[in-house]
């Protein structure tokens, strides 16, 4: 008996036992190691997505626009033009998400330039004259690296608040905002982006409303490229 259970024999038995148990564990339920197939349905649009045009909303009032301006920008910006007719603004679906957005000209409030240009401010500052549009017919593209623009003291800039859902910019959740340099001008109304030959030639990913305006005595329009706002002169 003692010879049978000498150390080398015991070791061999032990190793063999471990091996057999591991094999048994592996073979006992092979289905448990298969990735279980999934029967999934057709993907549905995201909850926030809307495929229907923005519903007609009541005409915006001065107080509506002021409330939205304050909700998004606090006291950091003031309307540039607040004449006898009040704040000048236009509304439309400027980013093509089927939700109504307002655009108005603002300038930094007194003493608020630091907050306006804070790198962690709640709005995206960009320059309409430096918007990058992929060149037509080129595939491998290296987008330019740009410095973050700064708003200057007293500078008029275009403020656009992106609406959310059917309520558009009146929705309390609507807080995504762009501050666009070189886009503040005299508004001439809005128009569908596809009405402009220049935009059709750019092959942008979305159809939007554009803001027609006169900037430095030149007619043009502000439009959404899919990622930023850009300015383009009108034909002729």
């Amino acid at each position, binding site marked *: *008996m003692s010879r049978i*259970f000498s150390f080398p024999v*015991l070791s061999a*038995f*032990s190793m063999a*036992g*471990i091996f057999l*148990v*591991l094999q048994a*564990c*592996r073979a006992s339920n092979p289905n448990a*190691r*298969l*990735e*279980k197939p*999934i029967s*999934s349905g*057709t*993907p*549905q649009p*995201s*909850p*926030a*997505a809307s*495929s229907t045009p923005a519903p007609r909303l009541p005409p915006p009032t001065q107080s509506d626009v002021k409330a939205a301006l304050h909700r998004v920008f606090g006291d950091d910006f003031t309307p540039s033009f607040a004449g006898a007719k009040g704040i000048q603004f236009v509304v439309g679906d400027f*980013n093509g*998400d089927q939700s109504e957005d307002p655009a108005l000209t603002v300038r930094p409030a007194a003493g608020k330039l630091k907050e306006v240009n*804070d*790198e*962690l*401010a*709640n709005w*995206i500052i960009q320059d309409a004259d430096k918007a990058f549009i*992929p060149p*037509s*017919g*080129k*595939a*491998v*593209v*290296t*987008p330019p*690296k*740009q*410095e*973050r623009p700064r708003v200057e003291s007293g500078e008029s800039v275009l403020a656009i608040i*992106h609406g*959310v859902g059917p309520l558009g910019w009146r929705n309390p*959740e609507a*807080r*995504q905002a762009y501050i666009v340099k070189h886009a503040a001008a005299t508004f001439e109304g809005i128009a569908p982006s596809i009405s402009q030959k220049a935009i*059709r*030639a750019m*092959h*942008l*990913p*979305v159809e939007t409303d554009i803001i027609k305006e006169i900037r430095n005595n030149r007619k043009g329009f502000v439009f959404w490229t*899919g*990622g*930023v706002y850009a300015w383009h002169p009108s034909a002729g």
Partner: protein
Amino acid sequence: MTRRKLPLLLCIATLAAACAIVGIAQTATPAPAAFATPLNNDQSGAVSNGFTTNATFSADEAVFMEEEDIAVGLGPVYNARSCVDCHAQPNVGSTSQVTELRVGHTDAAGNFVNPTLTINDGANSIPNRSLANDRAICAQASVNIPGAESVRALRATTSILGDGFVEAIDSNTLLSIANAQPGQSGGQIAGTFIQVPVLEAPGQVRAGRFGWKNQQASLLSFSADAYVNEQGVTSRLQPTESTTLCDTVADPEDHNDAAGLADIDHFARFMRATQAPPVDATLAATADAKAGATLFNQIGCNICHVTSITTSPAGTVINGGAFTVPAALGSKIIHPYSDFLLHNVGTGDGIVQNGGQATANQMRTMPLWGGRTRDRLMHDLLSFTRNDAILRHAGEATGVINNYRALSTTQKNQLITFLQSL
């Protein structure tokens, strides 16, 4: 102890040891993480995650870095001559500043339609293809995009580091994440889970997880897809050229080597063996980064940018039966900061690939691991600060981003410090 009891005790000890070994094998452990594929032409410094030996890993990396030419099947249309041309920052397999252009148009019903691209002055065409290659091996094959293709979108190179672990995630894990999101977000967030064909297992589908539209589920399929679409090299899984104009090499162009492996096999094995992108341990250990990590979860970023996922156990058969998860990839905890699902966060590109029309404006959640190595952000690389990238999120992310807007400047800085540690 009597000698008669000795056999019984030995049996018990053997069983206990076996159970312990099995238990250890099933306990999840952190995935190895390092930028361990330095840009050396001799592949020096390459260290695998254990899926292959370092020697094999280096050999596979060499194939990944190989420059193709016409004689081996490059083109007729292509974007780059080597994988590493785009996957290079900060090391082999990562990202780069390069984007590609996808195009198409919508029909009267608003559905995306793949274009027919013209070549050879209109005498030939490439039908049903949203990727418009920028390069060709002959002038006649150079792609011209018809003016009617009104949807055009940039897409950045995605990193493949750690993708072996991503492949080893059970599809059911991704489905569970998707199913939990509406409850976590008051119904605002619902990731789209799609299943796509596994090319090496005909008739089989699996959760898509690779590419901006989740168009691939396995790394071998992904390799074949990239090889034919980015370099124009056909393989046994993608044997058809987009055009035969100027093509002089018989398909499939990717042949087996002496070891019986084609290039796509080497690519897949290389990707499976890469380590996960590591965090900046020094920055991650700071009080600000730790506070930022807490805020990241508190405001809901982690609903989509999922912080931790555990891969399938070793031995799990995936990819429609074509691949078995090995010990090096099984039961590993990874921190990809992605749910590998499609979402509409207001940045969609309008392009449809495998997911159906509903996914036109949905993009895969960008994995944030390794994100500190790039400063051009989002799928089009058109956001230049982390704050701007965060603020570009809308759609499903509106509620979460409004939570971010409500943070103090100090808290935002902490959150961004955390992001810069990834």
